[in-house]
């Protein structure tokens, strides 16, 4: 297979995904394809179905209908196998407060990987995520939210999975750390990692994503190539879609 062919192949694929919670239709036949080595930003207001999509991909909840595939693995049929292809950064990274940042990374990585990773490489991941060298061996109980987020990013980086799912990854990060994260994500994309990022942050989405989807009421309203739109236009189109779908007067 040639490189261009590989790049065009969808590593993340959602077909007609539906999910209902009681009276609330969280996903209404969502179709989405993310080619290998690209970053897809899923924009949407609260309750749009972004986290539900990620939960289905992670195998935490089952879709009522439709198919979700990760790196060719059907999530519904084999969630455990699908998870081995995924690195995940939650909105709020939760760690064990009595362990240091490094120990947390070592623990999470050790559980998720069958191969032992040299300590130096794990420290590299922490540095790459932006955690200062002096903070790596401090107990997490004294970390700020941003520092915990960086450890979460390091956990995802160390996993070296072909797919990365990110749920509001810049939430709680200072501008410098958010900028570093974006650089890391761009670098990962260059290495062939496929990313799906749920976010509210239009600015970061435009900076890092190769494609942006606007999700409202469980439906993908519009897909945008960020290279073709300026920041204010992206914001205008986003607000228009949201207001239209929610029936709000501009």
């Amino acid at each position, binding site marked *: 297979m040639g490189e261009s062919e590989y790049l065009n192949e969808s590593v993340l694929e959602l077909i007609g995904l539906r999910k209902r919670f009681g009276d609330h239709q969280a996903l209404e036949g969502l179709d989405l394809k993310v080619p290998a080595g690209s970053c897809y930003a899923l924009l949407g207001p609260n309750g749009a179905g972004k986290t539900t999509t990620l939960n289905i991909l*992670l195998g*935490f909840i089952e879709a009522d209908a439709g198919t979700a595939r990760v790196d060719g693995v059907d999530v519904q049929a084999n969630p*455990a196998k699908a*998870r*081995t292809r*995924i690195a*995940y950064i*939650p909105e*709020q*990274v*939760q*760690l*064990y407060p*009595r*362990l240091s940042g490094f*120990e947390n990374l070592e*623990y*999470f*990585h*050790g*559980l*998720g990987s069958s191969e032992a990773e040299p300590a130096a490489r794990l420290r590299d991941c922490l540095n790459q995520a932006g955690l200062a060298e002096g903070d790596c061996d401090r*107990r997490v109980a004294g970390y700020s939210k941003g520092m915990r987020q960086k450890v*979460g990013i390091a*956990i995802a980086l160390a*996993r070296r999975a072909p797919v990365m799912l990110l749920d509001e990854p810049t939430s709680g990060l200072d501008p410098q750390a958010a900028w570093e994260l974006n650089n890391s994500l761009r670098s990962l994309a260059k290495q062939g990692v496929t990313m799906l990022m749920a976010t509210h942050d239009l600015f970061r989405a435009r900076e890092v994503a190769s494609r942006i989807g606007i999700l409202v009421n469980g439906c993908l309203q519009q897909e945008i190539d960020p290279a073709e739109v300026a920041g204010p236009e992206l914001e205008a189109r986003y607000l228009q879609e949201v207001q239209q779908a929610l029936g709000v007067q501009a």
Partner: protein
Amino acid sequence: MIRRLVAKELTELRRDGRVLGSLVILLLLGMGAGFSAWQQARVQHQAWHAASDGEHERWLGQEAKHPHSAAHYGVYAFRPPGPLAAFDPGLSPYLPVTVWMEAHRQNEALYRPAQDSGSAGGFIPLSPAIIVGTLLPLLLLLLAAPMISGERERGTLRQLLAQGVRPERIVLGKGLALAVLLLLLLLPLWLLAFAALLMTGAQGDVLLRWLLTGLAALLFLGGFAVFCLLVSACCRQTRTALLLLLGIWAFGTLVAPRGVMEWAEARHPTPSALDFRQAIDGGLADGAERERRIQARAKALLRQYGLDDLDDLPVNFNAVRLQEGEEHGNRVFDAVFGELHDGYLAQERWLQGAGWMAPFLAFQALSSGLAGSDLLHFRDFVDSAEAHRRMIQKAMNDAIYLQPETDGRRYVAAPELWATIPTFDYRPLATADVMAFYGPGWTALIAWFVVPLLALMAVSRRLAP
């Protein structure tokens, strides 16, 4: 992976000052309780040896006299402390320690140690068995309640599952960490108490009993730990798991024992002291059967020797009368004491059966049973003392039988006769007999281990963040 899971749990527990503090306090309490129980058991053993030896000396020190006078002179039987009483005093402080063995009558056992303990008797003794049965489960509960619910509440469970970790492995890691902690806590207590037991020179198959006590403790605490993990796995919040488990612990250790005991008493009532004495007095007063037997023996002896008059017999017919009187009394005592003790043992079995509801009851029953400080051993002691009393009476009457009283001269036995009576040396029940009686308790404990384990395995496969 499992090793990593266990190591992380233990590291967190080690770094949690509260947990470390609790463990140290519990260990010190255990050591203190063990030392105190050992001291107490040592003193009790010494007192028992001194009393038993002194009593036999008193018996041997009788002057020459008629054997029936010696039978009335009587002797005390002393109940030794159970083989593992240092671990679990059980009912020992509340059960009588002596029986007065004399002619014609099976006396009730007397003198409860708790009567001599003054105001201190009002306190529950902090024995190693109490620590294992009540305080260790409390510690396990505090450690296990947040293990899975806390991971879920914090969000780390979601991250662990997202890492591709199989949920049952997470639960297994938690369980093994608890098991390691449990062994670290139990082993020193177990070995310390064992050393103390050896030093007190406890009798019986102590080693086997101690191994079985360890097994019962492991089943009880292991089952409780698994149950705590199961509750933790089912609760979304640690607070809910903690409250639920605290409620279950309080019910099992504080409420259920009292309630089930009252239930057992209502289900298997025992006669009141008044009814008991009236039954004995009434039975003894009804001498028709005794007289019929005496007449039959008289006829048989006269026929055997071809005589017409009992006074001409070459044997002492008074011994026959005395022995028949004993036999008559024995039948009455067997019936009345038997009914009383059967009632107590039926209550004990009921308590064991209630172990299905509260495993603490099953553990308590097994622990005191293996310690030899329960009603089963008490009844065995009373029965042994009664058998000894009957043996003395038979020996004295046999001696009289061989000495016909001619010319109105009463037979006077030499002190050598007293030496033919061995010391009353009570040996605790064989462990196999104890195990047979406590079958329902073992079944309840095994069920309390296996059922939550199966439930936990089923729940852990579907563990959701």
